[in-house]
């Protein structure tokens, strides 16, 4: 008998009688406006710079003033293609992104309680893009902010993705004597554009 059959047989023999799954019901009593405030507080703790912007031209102005001097910037947002190199599909080896200084990507939605932004492969083309870039900027619509992770998975349910990731701030580590250092392997800094 193969290991698979042996393991499954032994597990079936030893698993205890059925215990029912709970029905998850966590009430959210706060308002959307309060979630936006909670998100901003959380992002501040996470060392994320937040810009509240009305539209893409406001994002462009900020990018040109603060970020575009960077040598290589790429974006997966078509509306920003005149200020940054637009990537609309996977054309070359992902290793070619190793010298990207700034990547500007959209997120489906954000979560106020932890500052996490939900991003899937269709929004970034290259899976490694939000990790390999030195700086990351994320654009998310204010309407697409939920409060907690239960609401987040309600939004994710039934959607199609091959790879998805919650991103909550720049890459970091505190492995050396619990001292927080930003930029462990991924981005050293993160900016969030709250749109609308």
């Amino acid at each position, binding site marked *: 008998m193969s290991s698979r059959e042996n*393991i499954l047989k032994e597990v079936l023999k*030893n698993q205890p009688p059925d*215990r029912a799954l709970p029905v998850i019901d*966590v009430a959210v009593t706060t308002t959307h406006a309060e979630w936006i405030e909670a998100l901003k507080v959380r992002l501040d703790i996470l060392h994320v710079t937040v810009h509240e912007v009305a539209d893409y031209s406001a994002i462009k102005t900020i990018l040109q003033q603060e970020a575009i001097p960077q040598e290589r910037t790429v974006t997966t947002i078509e509306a920003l293609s005149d200020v940054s190199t637009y990537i609309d599909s996977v054309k070359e080896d992902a290793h070619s992104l190793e010298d990207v200084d700034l990547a500007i990507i959209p997120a489906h939605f954000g979560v106020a309680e932890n500052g996490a932004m939900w991003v899937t492969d269709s929004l970034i083309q290259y899976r490694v893009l939000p990790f390999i870039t030195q700086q990351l900027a994320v654009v998310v619509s204010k309407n697409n902010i939920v409060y907690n992770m239960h609401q987040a998975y309600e939004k994710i349910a039934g959607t199609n993705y091959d790879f998805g990731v*919650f991103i909550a701030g720049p890459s970091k580590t505190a492995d050396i004597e619990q001292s927080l*250092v930003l930029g462990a*392997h*991924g981005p050293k800094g993160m900016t969030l554009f709250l749109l609308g």
Partner: protein
Amino acid sequence: MHSTITNHADAAIDFNLDEPRVDWHDKTLWFIREKRDMASHNIPEWEELREYASQIKNNVLSNLSQYLQEFEEKAKANGIIVHWAADAEEHNKIVHSILQKHNIDRMVKSKSMLTEECGLNEYLEANGVEVIDTDLGERIVQLAKEPPSHIVLPCIHKKKEEIGELFHQYLGTEKGASDPKYLTAAAREHLRETFLTRRAALTGVNFAIAETGEFVVSTNEGNADMGAHLADVHIACMGIEKVLPKQHHLGVFLRLLARSATGQPITTYSSHFKVPQPHQEMHIVFVDNGRSVHLGKDDFRNSLKCIRCAACMNTCPVYRRSGGHSYHNAVAGPIGSILTPNFDMRANKDLPFASTLCGSCSNVCPVKIDIHDQLYKWRQVLMKEGLGPTTKNASMKMMGWVLSKPALYDISGKAARLVLKYTPFVVSNKLNPWYKQREMPAPPKESFKEWYKKNRS
């Protein structure tokens, strides 16, 4: 498995030789416990979440064979190749054979306690494969040729000066430099080069979803993603107990995991791997290694609910003052002390005794494992099997004899008080384990029985 000392108490003596350092270790971990408290107190429904998590895990254990098959079917449909390993040796062989098929002899690895449990690095290195651990803490202990001492904070026992010395030796940083920012930047450069040149990446698995066939990996550094997305081959290794029934259960577990571990509301990255990239091969290795037998033990199966947050380690007064290495296993602390005897009762017979049974571990556990009750139950099993500490055996027998004879008990009590008063050196010496690291208390003037007679008559 790693250490030559296989007795917790003996290893703890070594750890306690440097008292200021023990105090530092103790305080560092307590600081993390306090951060956990703040994060959990911010959530009004924290106790409900623990109860949900516990119930979901109970359901998982009671339907594990079905969920494993469901996950396998969905993962295969997603294009992932699924393997099953009965034990550590088969796991190591499977990983090696995947690398051989692709002619790969250098691999990056992100944190996986399972591969520590299986001794994968040693196995691959003996077979000519270079493995580089990419979690900063794990890379540090790898350079120091030590195992991790903590499942979330692998090098929590190391001082920055020691890390500076290691980096000077291996990564060419300046001699004497110990600034965490400087050292982290050096590791970043060294590991980026590694990520860009390795064709295989191995990661652990935090949660695998039966409903969708996807698996979730949580990191703060982004090392799992840097490795996996740049590699031609991604191998993910998981213990069979890591499966969850439904995708929305992640809402419960991702709220609990990082808050319990480090006090963060979530890790920086929670990556959901579902379908391999077009040019890529993705493998999952299910590992049993004693878990299916463990599942059959009514008193002990609960420990299979563990999500490896390490809250029980950070809160444990014994762990904080004895260090992770003294538990001589990949998973240390209270949870390690109840998991490891399931795999090898003889080799780990000392661990259920490495506790004060204070119960703090059970109070912080996000999935409500009855850790201190299981420690107590393991002691019963070990004493019955004749595997209890020998000094304990003799002293228990003596105590039973004295307690059965009231007159003798009175005399012994009086004698002990006299000894403590006039000749304290008889107990305050190295032969008495209770004297280690502490002073003996002042003896009372009279016994409770004498006091009661005087005051109640």
